């Protein structure tokens, strides 16, 4: 009788094998796409975004990196990180070490949602009776800049547990990445995959491999720090779509998908961009 049931299980697994490729197959195909499109990019250099494919722009970026504008935010973030809340606790009580990037984003099975590092920062505040930070810039970007700086060199290693809800969140992020939106009718992949290396006006489209390794970012256009979700919202506005909420489900799932696509690369935030 035991043999029969084993056979039964075997059959059912084969039948219900997902028609969709697995996340790991997606990642391998994603990586191969960029490595064949930009063979000149050295191993692991995609974490430097468009500067991995534009030598002239990279020179200017390196001049800025000599004394990058995000250093101010790192210092402010460290101060906030160590300043006790009203109840005497501080961020050090929520996180065993500030170097947390390698643990995020992760699938929280109890709450059934993707948790990003920025969301965890705000949750720590709320748990300690403090008001959460604004979700795109300011203190959240500063604390995140400090934690990202401390995490430099950690390997990107997003896990998708064997939980249908986690896989669904990954698939939603993936779908958003390939879905056309806004009056200009663009999908992220139109510019950052099939258009990567080409120009929109005078801007060269950065490749998506390594896209989420170097956040938060000081953009000279903003003259300010900004989180990854601020950039997602900015890009959707560019294509004339109404952006989703920062730290909301859509952008958290997109970050889950995009960061998974860069598994194996290194975190090198915070970053400086144009």
């Amino acid at each position, binding site marked *: 009788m035991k043999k029969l049931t084993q056979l039964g299980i075997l059959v059912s697994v084969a039948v219900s094998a997902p028609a969709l490729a697995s996340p790991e197959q997606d990642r391998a195909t994603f990586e191969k796409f960029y490595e064949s499109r930009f063979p000149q990019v050295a191993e692991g250099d995609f974490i430097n975004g468009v500067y991995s494919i534009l030598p*002239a*722009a990279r*020179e*200017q*970026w390196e*001049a*800025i990196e*000599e004394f990058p504008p995000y250093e101010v935010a790192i210092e402010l973030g460290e101060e906030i990180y160590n300043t006790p809340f009203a109840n005497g606790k501080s961020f050090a009580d929520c996180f065993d070490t500030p170097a947390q990037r390698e643990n995020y984003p992760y699938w929280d099975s109890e709450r059934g949602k993707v948790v990003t590092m920025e969301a965890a920062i705000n949750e720590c505040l709320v748990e300690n009776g403090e008001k959460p930070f604004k979700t795109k810039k300011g203190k959240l970007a500063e604390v995140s800049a400090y934690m990202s700086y401390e995490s430099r060199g950690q390997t990107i290693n997003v896990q998708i547990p064997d939980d249908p809800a986690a896989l669904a969140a990954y698939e939603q992020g993936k779908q958003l990445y390939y879905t056309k939106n806004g009056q*200009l009718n*663009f999908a992220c992949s139109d*510019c950052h995959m099939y258009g990567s290396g080409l120009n*929109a*006006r*005078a*801007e060269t*489209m950065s490749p998506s491999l390594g896209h989420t390794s170097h956040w938060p970012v000081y953009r*000279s*256009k903003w*003259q300010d720090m900004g989180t990854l979700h601020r950039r997602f919202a900015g*890009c959707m*506005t*560019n*294509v*004339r779509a109404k952006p989703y909420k920062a730290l909301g489900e859509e952008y958290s799932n997109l970050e889950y998908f995009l960061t998974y696509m860069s598994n194996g690369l290194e975190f090198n935030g915070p970053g400086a961009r*144009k």
Partner: protein
Amino acid sequence: MDRRSLIRALGGAIVAAAALPKLAWAAWSSNAMKAGESTAAMNELFGTADVVASAEVKLKAPEIAENGAVVPLEVSTDMPAEQIAIFVDKNPSPLVMTATMGAGATGLVKTRVRMGESSNVVAVVKSGGKLYSASQEVKVTIGGCGG
């Protein structure tokens, strides 16, 4: 006209120009800074616009600026330099900055400047009382890819 007499001369002007803060160090060369055109600014700053282009002056500037608000520039020379000045011809006031080499300073200055539009950038080095220059066209584009 060494620095001390320069200050005394300008000191008079400052007092006359009512309650400007008393500057303790090198006065701000306001005429040169306010000049609306490079040659005039050079004349105000150095007393002459007689400058010769020289390979001894190295100006590191981008061909296309990533962002017109933050254009990284580097001026360097192996000549013994007394002063280095940077001009952006098309800026409202072309003289962007000037640096005076003190004791032991080498002929090197790096900074980040704003450029309103594509323009010629000129670096001028004063060495042995003479002016040497290098220049490069820097393109500034309208940023952004959509919106």
